[in-house]
């Protein structure tokens, strides 16, 4: 078990865009194990993205096994994930291993359809909603060099989600 060092804001590497995984080999499996160990070492952590440990490939882990009240797929390793469809909007509170001691309110899509490869390189597709969809969006943002800080909403604009006006 190896816990890797987590990059912390304002480390400029957190802005770096990660490259797709091309080889599903044993080095990938070893890295995923380390990434998982690092996630489990973070208190209350439900997801992690490879760039957070300075590894710039499109790999994330989403793990809601500790949140049985929210519908979820358990622990997922998502490689080269792509959100192919999204709908709805919801405000929720987010924090980040890479931004210690701060949480803020963020608007995310309520429902997403996501395609990704699993650890063995098999293509998969997942329907996610609510908290799990939020975690996936947060982690995929890391692959594109984005932090939740880039999506903070002003308190006043949260009063009513915009969809209420549109409907």
């Amino acid at each position, binding site marked *: 078990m190896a816990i890797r060092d987590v990059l912390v804001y304002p480390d400029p590497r957190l802005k770096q865009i990660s490259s797709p995984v091309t080889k599903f080999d044993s080095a990938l499996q070893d890295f995923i194990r380390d990434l998982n160990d690092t996630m489990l070492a973070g208190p209350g952590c439900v997801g*992690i993205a490879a760039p957070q440990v300075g590894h710039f490939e499109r790999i994330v882990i989403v793990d809601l096994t500790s949140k049985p009240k929210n519908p979820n797929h358990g622990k997922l390793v998502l490689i080269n994930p792509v959100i192919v469809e999204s709908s709805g909007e919801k405000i929720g*509170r987010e924090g980040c291993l890479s931004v210690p001691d701060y949480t803020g309110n963020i608007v995310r899509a309520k429902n997403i359809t996501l395609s990704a490869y699993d650890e063995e390189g098999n293509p998969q597709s997942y329907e996610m909603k609510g*908290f799990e969809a939020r975690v996936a969006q947060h982690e995929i943002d890391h692959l594109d060099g984005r932090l939740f800080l880039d999506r903070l909403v002003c308190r006043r604009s949260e009063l009513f989600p915009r969809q209420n006006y549109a409907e």
Partner: protein
Amino acid sequence: MNPWYLLTLVGKDRPGIVAGVTSALYKEGANLGEASMVQLGGNFTIMVLAQYEGTTDELSKAILPVAKDFDLRLHVDPVLEPRHQASIPDVRITVYGADRAGIVAEVTTALAEAGLNILNLETDVGGAIYILIIEGTASQGIDALQKVLDNLAREKNLETRLSPIDTLIG
């Protein structure tokens, strides 16, 4: 470590208040912490934490000229524990109804009795609607708050919504 102060400045709104006040604080060597700066009615209100090497009187004296320039009333309080761990809200409550006197008092009193500790409350008046958005911690659990809100909805003719805040860490 220099001590922390809470500065309150209130006055008729006009352009440049935030820039003027924060520049004055910066020139005095003060380090800003969290702040709330918001227009209320025709007033502009600033509450800001600042770390400063001098005393309460020295800070007041240093900021008074800019407060006078903008016709702001200034108040400075020493702060004992500025950097205590900020509480993370675990519940968000929205209440709205036809505007009338007493809504905020009724709602917050009932919620306080059911264990709500308010961390942030904002209200808005839109036409004839009064809107309350509250974030806080539920010290007696969410069910106790839900019960109170159901009562308020029934007895006071208010629309209420409670959503647990599940903070994502990732």
